[in-house]
């Protein structure tokens, strides 16, 4: 008789809640004669996100009392790192489901499938972050990706949406294949796919011929670079960002970063942590290229979604800094960066979505000319969000950049610190150009941008986060620090 492994349900509750909510929506909509209203679906999805956050609080308390633990045959790990990732994902989901509701109304996308897919996709992201097994990470990655492919292709009114999805699909598939090949080779090198066992193996064995392990790690790293659109694996990002429906772009930019970064931090620092020095040159190159190329190519963009794509490439380079450092401080700072990036980028894309109108086509930067004159609050909100991404002082973005650069310096990466900060100076140009356009006085007659309640809430939340935690980053930093201290062996 097979002995079924025991499951600690608290640890997998977030994943279960999201899948459960997704399935519940799916089944309910199939069993009702009339279509389920978008607000009902949104309420459920907001509710489930809130539930996940509540569960995460309990998880945090549980970990504080009992320490980190592995469950379901070591496939899932319950530690603060994962809990924080869960919260970040839940937050992103919450905000996105609100934005997506208004988007669906505006673009006449009927049905509640977007909510169903968003919920399921989030479950995949959480799975990546709490997984302790490379196969589970792979499956989480696929759930995340497949959900996103469909979401990207959702907009039936724009042919570009499906074409972007195709492109995303092909490169995502390539990344997945590279990742799983890396996993296969790591499995060959260590005899396991469980991360903690792998790290134990590396810690207790001296490898005379470490080539296989290096190779596997390198492939995993490349796949990861694909997923977070680090240069030179970034080519898909601008097209996909441009083609995807705007709220989904925001979701993608936020959630993929959380899932990918936090999942891969676990793989690289926890699983392969003992040979960090091997990966450092690769990471170094990725960071330098991503930050510089992202900033420089962003300068030429006229389309704001492409611009934000390059911006996110640049930001991904920053997020990698903490990974490069590989210290507790580095992990904490990357966590901080990733978590704070979620509300900012989703709110930014929420505004972009509003401005682009019902057709979701007006993404030229000139559409923003004088926006801040006509609608000061909206303009100010966008300005704050952009300044935060720029890294202006007393915004959340400053502390995010500061902490990652600090962690790199702490690990004696002065060159990296210099290069990334200089790239931020270059990137500042396009953020500022956009911000300045908001308040340009050229009289371009344009209609007012309607701000629906849900999206307005999201934007307000994003701005409030930026400003409040921009002065007082202590709580988030505290969480990140506690999540990272116990994380590294």
């Amino acid at each position: 008789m097979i002995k079924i492994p025991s499951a600690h349900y608290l640890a997998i509750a977030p994943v279960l809640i999201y899948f459960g909510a997704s399935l519940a929506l799916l089944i309910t909509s199939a069993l009702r004669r009339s279509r389920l209203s978008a607000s009902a679906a949104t309420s459920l999805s907001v509710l489930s996100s809130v539930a996940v956050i509540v569960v995460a609080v309990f998880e945090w308390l549980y970990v504080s009392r009992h320490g980190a633990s592995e469950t379901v045959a070591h496939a899932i790990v319950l530690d603060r790192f994962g809990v924080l990732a869960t919260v970040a994902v839940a937050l992103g989901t919450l905000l996105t489901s609100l934005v997506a509701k208004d988007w669906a109304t505006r673009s006449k996308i009927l049905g509640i499938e977007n909510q169903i897919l968003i919920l399921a996709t989030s479950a995949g992201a959480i799975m990546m972050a709490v997984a302790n097994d490379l196969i589970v990470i792979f499956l989480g990655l696929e759930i995340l990706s497949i959900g996103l492919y469909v979401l990207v292709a959702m907009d039936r009114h724009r042919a570009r949406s499906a074409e972007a999805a195709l492109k995303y699909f092909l490169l995502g598939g390539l990344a997945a294949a590279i990742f799983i090949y890396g996993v296969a080779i790591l499995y060959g090198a260590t005899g396991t796919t469980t991360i903690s066992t792998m790290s134990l193996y590396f810690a207790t064995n001296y490898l005379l011929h470490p080539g296989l392990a290096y190779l596997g790690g390198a492939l995993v790293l490349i796949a990861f670079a694909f997923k977070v659109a680090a240069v030179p694996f970034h080519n898909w990002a601008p097209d996909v960002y441009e083609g995807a429906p705007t709220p989904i772009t925001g979701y993608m930019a936020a959630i993929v970063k959380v899932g990918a970064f936090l999942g891969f931090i676990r793989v690289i620092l926890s699983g392969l942590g003992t040979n960090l020095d091997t990966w450092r040159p690769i990471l170094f190159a990725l960071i330098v290229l991503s930050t510089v190329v992202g900033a420089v190519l962003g300068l030429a963009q006229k389309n704001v979604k492409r611009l934000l794509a390059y911006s996110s490439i640049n930001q991904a380079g920053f997020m990698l800094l903490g990974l490069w450092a590989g210290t507790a401080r580095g992990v904490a700072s990357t966590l901080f960066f990733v978590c704070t990036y979620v509300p900012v980028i989703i709110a930014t894309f929420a505004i972009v979505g509003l401005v682009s109108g019902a057709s979701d086509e007006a993404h030229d930067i000139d559409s923003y000319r004088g926006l801040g004159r006509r609608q000061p609050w909206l303009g100010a909100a966008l300005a704050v969000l952009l300044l935060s991404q720029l890294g202006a002082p007393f915004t959340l973005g400053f502390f995010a950049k500061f902490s990652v650069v600090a962690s790199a310096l702490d690990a004696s990466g002065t060159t990296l610190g210099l290069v990334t900060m200089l790239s931020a100076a270059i990137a500042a140009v396009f953020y500022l150009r956009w911000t300045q356009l908001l308040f340009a006085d050229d009289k371009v007659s344009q209609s007012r941008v309607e701000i629906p309640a849900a999206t307005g809430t999201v934007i307000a939340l994003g701005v409030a986060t930026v400003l409040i935690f921009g002065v007082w980053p202590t709580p988030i930093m505290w969480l990140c620090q506690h999540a990272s201290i116990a994380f590294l062996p």
Partner: protein
Amino acid sequence: MLALSYALPSIIVFVASAALILTGAVGVITLKNPVHAALSLIMTLFGVAVAFIAQQADFLAAVQIIVYAGAIVVLFLFVIMFLGVDRREGVEVQPLVGQKTLALFGVVVTISGVVFMMARSHWVTGIPSLSGSKLANGAHNVNQLGTSVFTTYLFAFEATAALLIIAVVGAVLLARRERSTGEAQ
């Protein structure tokens, strides 16, 4: 000396599977007609199945044929024929701005790197298995595989259910016809 120290049947099987795999793979990337490419793909899949059997993974070999050849490639052909992609212009994308030579260079470098690294580590470090049970021969390995899926990989197994649900919902969503007429009423 290298070759003769191994049993002849296993060498024959290897050569056969390699020939199938490589011929098929080259066919996939060179043939113009998608249907021919799909046929080449089937060839590769059979080759891989042969390689599986040669390595005592006969259950997987069967699953390989059932899933890949029996379902996935059929699906390919279905879509090709359904859309008439082979006769009309196909769906074209240019995901990377790389040219052929660049791609070839990259791939060759990567693969030689892979081979080199593997050779450096003497192909496999030969450590005893850390997790799961020892691989038994023959019929028992199906049982073992099942046990492993329901113990070590239980969570992954459950996750595949979710994955498939998402994939199905997504595919239905994508392939569904436009609702323009229905909603206009």
